[in-house]
């Protein structure tokens, strides 16, 4: 029987079973068991209240969302032209651009983050070059602060945006652009009135997936951030490892998971529009 005739649920079954068995069940079990450990609903609420409304969690959530937003915007601004170039490139140029984007991701995040630390440090390469050429007289603070976190995360997240945008841009029918030009539109008008609207759903999908990934970040802010650059995942890790306060970790996890699921809901709506949207 050809694969196409099999019902979709059967094709999905192995992946679904795996996800349910090794992901959903354990994480659900952990969350429920940890929170139940607290006792009566009143006692649970008391702890939820203490965790959520302690200044730390609120502060971390604000940091998390703010950093996520800044990084997502930067990734979009940098990624959009790159994706355009990629979607129009052919042969060797295409392979080269793709390699440049994907190749660094064959090494681990920690190694890449340490590489950034060598570049950005007070006596790092960038500061030495700038000091050497006399452009600055004091080393710039590029590391162990918000700047460092944003640089590091932007770099790590760039490919997710580029590849998402690439898919949307590749689907744009170039004849539409030619038609617009033929009817006397300036290049700016072609971009604003034809190309940008046709790739908008890709932008939204890319923004959401980048933001979802960004708010769960841990390694980069932990290594490159300053003392106050605490993101929610770092607080969760600390409750699990350091204070062994698993109920508190579970409560924070639920918060992060909820935000992520809401965003994912939005993402799946817009990526659903991807097929419809790209048609002429």
């Amino acid at each position, binding site marked *: 029987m050809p694969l196409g005739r099999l019902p979709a649920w059967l094709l999905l079954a192995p992946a679904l079973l795996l996800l349910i068995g090794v992901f959903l069940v354990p994480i659900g079990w952990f969350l429920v068991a940890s929170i139940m450990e607290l006792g009566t609903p009143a006692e649970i609420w008391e702890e939820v209240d203490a965790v959520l409304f302690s200044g730390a969690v609120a502060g971390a959530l604000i940091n998390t969302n703010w950093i996520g937003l800044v990084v997502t915007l930067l990734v979009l601004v940098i990624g959009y032209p790159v994706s355009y170039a990629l979607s129009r490139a052919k042969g060797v140029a295409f392979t080269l651009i793709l390699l440049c984007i994907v190749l660094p991701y064959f090494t681990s995040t920690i190694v890449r983050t340490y590489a950034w630390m060598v570049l950005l440090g007070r006596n790092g390469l960038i500061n030495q070059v700038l000091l050497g050429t006399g452009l600055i007289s004091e080393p710039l603070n590029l590391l162990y602060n918000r700047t460092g976190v944003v640089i590091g995360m932007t770099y790590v997240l760039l490919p997710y945006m580029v590849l998402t945008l690439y898919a949307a841009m590749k689907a744009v029918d170039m004849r539409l652009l030619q038609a617009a030009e033929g009817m006397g539109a300036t290049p700016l008008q072609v971009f604003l009135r034809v190309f940008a609207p046709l790739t908008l759903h890709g932008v939204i999908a890319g923004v959401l997936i980048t933001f979802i990934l960004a708010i769960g970040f841990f390694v980069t802010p932990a290594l490159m951030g300053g003392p106050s650059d605490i993101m929610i995942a770092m607080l969760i*890790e600390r409750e699990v490892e350091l204070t062994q306060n698993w109920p508190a970790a579970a409560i924070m*996890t639920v918060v992060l998971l909820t935000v992520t699921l809401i965003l994912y809901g939005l993402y799946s709506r817009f990526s659903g529009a991807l097929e419809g949207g790209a048609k002429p």
Partner: protein
Amino acid sequence: MSGKSIRISRRLLVATALAAPVLQSRVARASGEVIVRTPGGVYDDIMRRHVYDPFTRETGITVRPVAATTAKLFAMFRANNVELDLIDTGNGQLITLERMGALAPIAYDSWRWSKPEDITPELRKRTQVANFVYCTVLAYNKETFANGHPNSWAEFWDAGRFPGPRMLADMAAGSPNLEFALLADSVPKNQIYPIDIDRALRSLSRIRPHIRRFWDTGALSAQMLSDREVVLGSIWNGRLQTLIDRNAPLAYTWNEHMIQVQALGIFKDAANVAGAQRLIDFMMQPHVQAGYAKELIYGPTNEKAFSLLSPEEIARMPGGERSRQTGFYQDVSWWEDNRDRVNRAWSRWVMR
């Protein structure tokens, strides 16, 4: 994928998978092997040379070091599925495990190689015995401070007299340097505990503008000093000594160093409790301790080991008489009781 949500879930997954007894079949292990939790890395190589291999030659019992975070140890015990026998970790974590009822008493009575009375009394407890002491010292860059260096935590706090970027330990390192903050605020060494958290944080606020970064791992603290990212800082003596031995222009003072303890405990439900007891006995011998302490640059806990070390070697190590004079022990039971409280206060403080 680098998102921590993924990373965290993976870790939780490990914990929960461990905690699902139905999925686990207890693999019967021959008594011919002791599995020990260690900090990993170079530590394992040193211990293999000085402890594990000689122990295997003597007894025929092999030793397998494994990595495990505190949370994993915790999960193993809660799931009633202990995968290892001996735990080689900070004494604080062992206190937590003892309070959970996870540890077996150390069988001092049946020691044949070592004498319990040779072990420093404060380091010989019912369910844990220390295998070495390490310490946090005040380190400085010799080139930056060629004409006089800070010699106490009060002077470390004096950024007017000793300018330059600094570092101290972060909460994520296990405990932030509240003790040094109090010493800098003229609290006498013997009155540090119980720590007045608010006072310590107020004191830290004064030096915070000069802190380049609070370090969370030993590796980071060493890197920041050697890259001249900071010129002053608190750091574990072994990490620092390794840099100095590689000719980094760094030095430190023994004044007001904080002694911390690495210790051994045995899971009471472990598959090979007897083998673990014998390994502890073996590890506590003076000549064995002298061997690994010399390489780790940490202090032995068997007082007899000092006589097997040269004065130059002892000069590099914490422990012994000098520590009694110029250092102080970190009060880990205070930390175990208050870590949660400190963690929340710290998070609020750093995000201000």
